């Protein structure tokens, strides 16, 4: 092997002020060779993004600084370089692709100019040549109709196209090193598959070294040559991708791999309890043509959705962003009003009810939100959050508090923690509190809108286990919205696949996973990263 493109040795990054730990990363060493993709994988707070920022010289100035260690790009030390020197290197010899293609592009500049900016800064090409280079690059990343698209603004492109623009801008000067910080995390699974393929292709084209940061082992198994596993600012394990994924040596790696849900659904007995929730021909339409806006755009967010959930059963709604899966959940929980159709809770049609009529129904169904950091009021204690619902329905404060303490134990948190504020808890703990808050209402139906998507994989596994536990214990009907097929495989009895507001396929989890019928379902399965791989801790 030739000399590595990037060599990080014994790097420590100190955090100024009083953080939860003095170093963001501590004593890490890794290298990226030419024509090699190295995946840095870890949970939130592992220091994987800080590593990338340190290499790029983009550490937040007032908060962090490189304390010790060296970073060498093609043998050249970067830590001692001045800002001006680093600027000259960024874009030409190393480049970065960010997570959020929405915010990483300037919304008021044409995408062609944003790619061209790299050339304008670092080369003395004239505008005509620049445009030609940009067009070539756009063709190389397989953007459709580059002649047209070069003058488009970011909002006119899809998320995947924007990420292609980002990659084009990063690679236009053929840097030796490409750093990709969770470049596919914000994308749908089918788009993710395409972007991963593109990264591979672009990397092979000029034998670029790639430092790929991700939290997703599926992505790792698709793309990595070598893997670096990080935890709390340290490197736990590194090695060839196959070795680490098949025979992890460290406990932490084994635990992480064991937490990745399997794509094979476990055997389940069909549930035959009474129907708790039934929707019939549910529609939700946004926008309305009126006298003033005769040509207003009408969007069918949900079209003709009919489903039912029985007591003790989990129905999963799977789909990509914009498929309308969340809107269905919100229509049922009455966070938005359905346009037409029926929503029956215990055979009572609630779709046409006014808010005042509907309020008594609220205790029968509870909602768990995606973002545990925002679904608890930061100004109120956990106890107050849990007792709010029961007290709305007439329970006395003391009884409600007693129930809150009991439920804290049910969700495996200390009952004494009811006096604490949400920010004192981790994301997973907060999601447990949200589950306790929902259970305090003694509901029959639990609606989870991506309840584990914002959580780290190890925490995700625990919350899923907890959800399953409370479903059994309280014999709940669960409507589980997710974009993650692995999660769906593990928790759902039946699955409904949604695309553009319509349920395209519905059936038992085992059937859908074994033999998807609809084209879209097949495409979804095809795109799932690492679909052929079972992750489990080595024996």
């Amino acid at each position: 092997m030739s000399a590595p493109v990037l060599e990080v040795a014994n790097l420590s990054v100190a955090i100024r002020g009083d953080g939860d730990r003095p170093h963001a990363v501590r004593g890490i060493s890794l290298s990226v060779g030419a024509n090699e993709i190295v995946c840095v994988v870890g949970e939130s707070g592992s220091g994987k993004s800080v590593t990338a920022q340190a290499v790029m010289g983009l550490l937040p100035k007032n908060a962090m600084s490189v304390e010790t260690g060296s970073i060498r790009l093609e043998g050249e030390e970067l830590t001692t370089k001045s800002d001006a020197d680093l600027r000259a290197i960024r874009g030409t010899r190393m480049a970065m692709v960010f997570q959020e293609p929405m915010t990483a592009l300037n919304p008021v500049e044409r995408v062609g100019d944003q790619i061209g900016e790299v050339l304008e800064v670092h080369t003395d090409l004239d505008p005509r040549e620049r445009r030609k280079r940009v067009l070539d690059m756009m063709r190389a990343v397989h953007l459709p109709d580059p002649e047209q698209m070069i003058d488009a603004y970011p909002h006119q492109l899809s998320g995947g196209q924007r990420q292609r623009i980002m990659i084009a801008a990063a690679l236009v000067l053929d840097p030796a090193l490409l750093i990709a910080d969770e470049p596919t995390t914000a994308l749908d699974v089918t788009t993710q598959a395409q972007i991963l393929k593109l990264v591979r292709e672009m990397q092979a084209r000029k034998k670029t070294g790639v430092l790929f940061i991700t939290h997703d082992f599926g992505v790792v198994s698709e793309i990595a040559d070598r893997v670096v596993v990080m935890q709390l600012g340290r490197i736990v394990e590194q090695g060839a991708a196959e070795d680490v994924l098949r025979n992890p040596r460290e406990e932490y790696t084994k635990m992480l791999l064991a937490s990745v849900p399997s794509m094979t659904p476990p055997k389940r007995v069909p549930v035959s309890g009474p129907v708790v929730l039934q929707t019939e021909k549910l529609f939700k339409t946004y926008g309305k043509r009126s006298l003033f806006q005769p040509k207003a755009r009408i969007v069918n967010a949900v079209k003709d959705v009919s489903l039912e959930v029985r007591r003790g059963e989990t129905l999963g709604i799977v789909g990509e962003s914009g498929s309308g899966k969340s809107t269905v959940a919100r229509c049922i929980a009455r966070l938005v009003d359905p346009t037409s159709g029926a929503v029956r809770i215990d055979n009572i049609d609630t779709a046409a009810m006014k808010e005042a009529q509907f309020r008594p129904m609220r205790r029968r169904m509870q909602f768990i939100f995606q973002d545990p950091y925002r679904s608890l009021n930061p100004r109120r204690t956990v106890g107050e959050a849990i007792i709010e619902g029961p007290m709305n329905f007439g329970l006395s404060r003391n009884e409600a508090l007693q129930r809150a303490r009991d439920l804290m134990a049910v969700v495996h948190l200390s009952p004494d923690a009811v006096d604490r504020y949400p920010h004192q808890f981790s994301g997973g703990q907060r999601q447990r509190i949200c589950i306790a808050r929902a259970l305090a209402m003694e509901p029959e139906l639990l609606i989870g809108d991506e309840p584990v998507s914002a959580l780290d994989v190890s925490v995700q596994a625990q919350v899923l286990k907890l959800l399953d536990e409370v479903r059994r214990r309280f014999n709940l009907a669960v409507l589980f919205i997710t974009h993650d097929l692995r999660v769906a495989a593990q928790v759902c009895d039946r699955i409904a696949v949604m695309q553009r507001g319509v349920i395209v396929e519905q059936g038992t989890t085992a059937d859908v996973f074994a033999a998807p019928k609809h084209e879209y379902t097949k495409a979804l399965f095809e795109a799932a990263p690492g679909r052929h791989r079972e992750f489990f801790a080595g024996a």
Partner: protein
Amino acid sequence: MADLSLDTPIAAAPVKPAAAIRKLLLNPAVLFGGAVITVVVLTGLLAPWLGTIDPTAINPIARNKVPGAEFFMRTDTGERIKMIALFGTDGLGRDVYSRVVYGARVSLFVGVSVALISVACGLLIGVLAGFFRLLDAVIMRIMDGLMAIPAILLAIAMVSLFRSSVWTVIIAITVPQVPGVVRLVRSIVLSVREEPYVEAAVTLGTSTPKLLWRHVLPNTIAPMIVQGTFICASAILIEAILSFLGIGVPPEVPTWGNIMAEGRQVFSLFPHNIIYPGVFLAMTILAVNILGDGLRDTLDPKMAKRV
């Protein structure tokens, strides 16, 4: 992982109110602004004990004395006593020092009243507009209309309709201030109502008034304190302008604006009539604005970056 166990270490203590206050007291802008305002407030409150005489007492034999000059005045008991006119006297022989000190009362009262009333009205109307979409369009168009009314014209109209008094001035200044507060509150409410914890409260069956009180209104406290101080400063200034133009507080009441208005004709000969109240006015407004900046930096860091 550790997350499962009951004895998981839970993050360190929250930001206690005491810590927030300590942070406030460490901010130099808050300290400086607060100190100057405290001095002005004390001046106003303690006016009778600060060596002042009746600020409305006319003394024909001691007209237009320069600062530091001696003059004689007759007390209620008929005694003749010698006084030193610290800031001089005006064209009617009134003691400018006494008038400036008593004037602090009116200026601060107007400033604080306007701030409190406009924040209270703005909160109420803003929450209604932000939370109830049907009211929004109507309320905001009314607010647009109010914003188009100039404070000075409104004051002239009100003085000619009613008797000129401190309350006429307060209302005339408040009305055009309210729409600004309404807009701010509305924008906060619009963003907070999308927060999952507000939606969670809806799914818990929390009634709308409780929802607003518990989950929405607390988010407006910090911005309202900040906005209130800025309104206070501009109200003091507008009051001075109105009084200077003779359409504010009645001329016999000593206010900084009135004192300056009295001294206008003789400014080139006796500038002390304008300089002393002017200095007090400028210092007070500067202090209130600096305090507002400091409060904004500590209470509302997001806003500090934006403005």
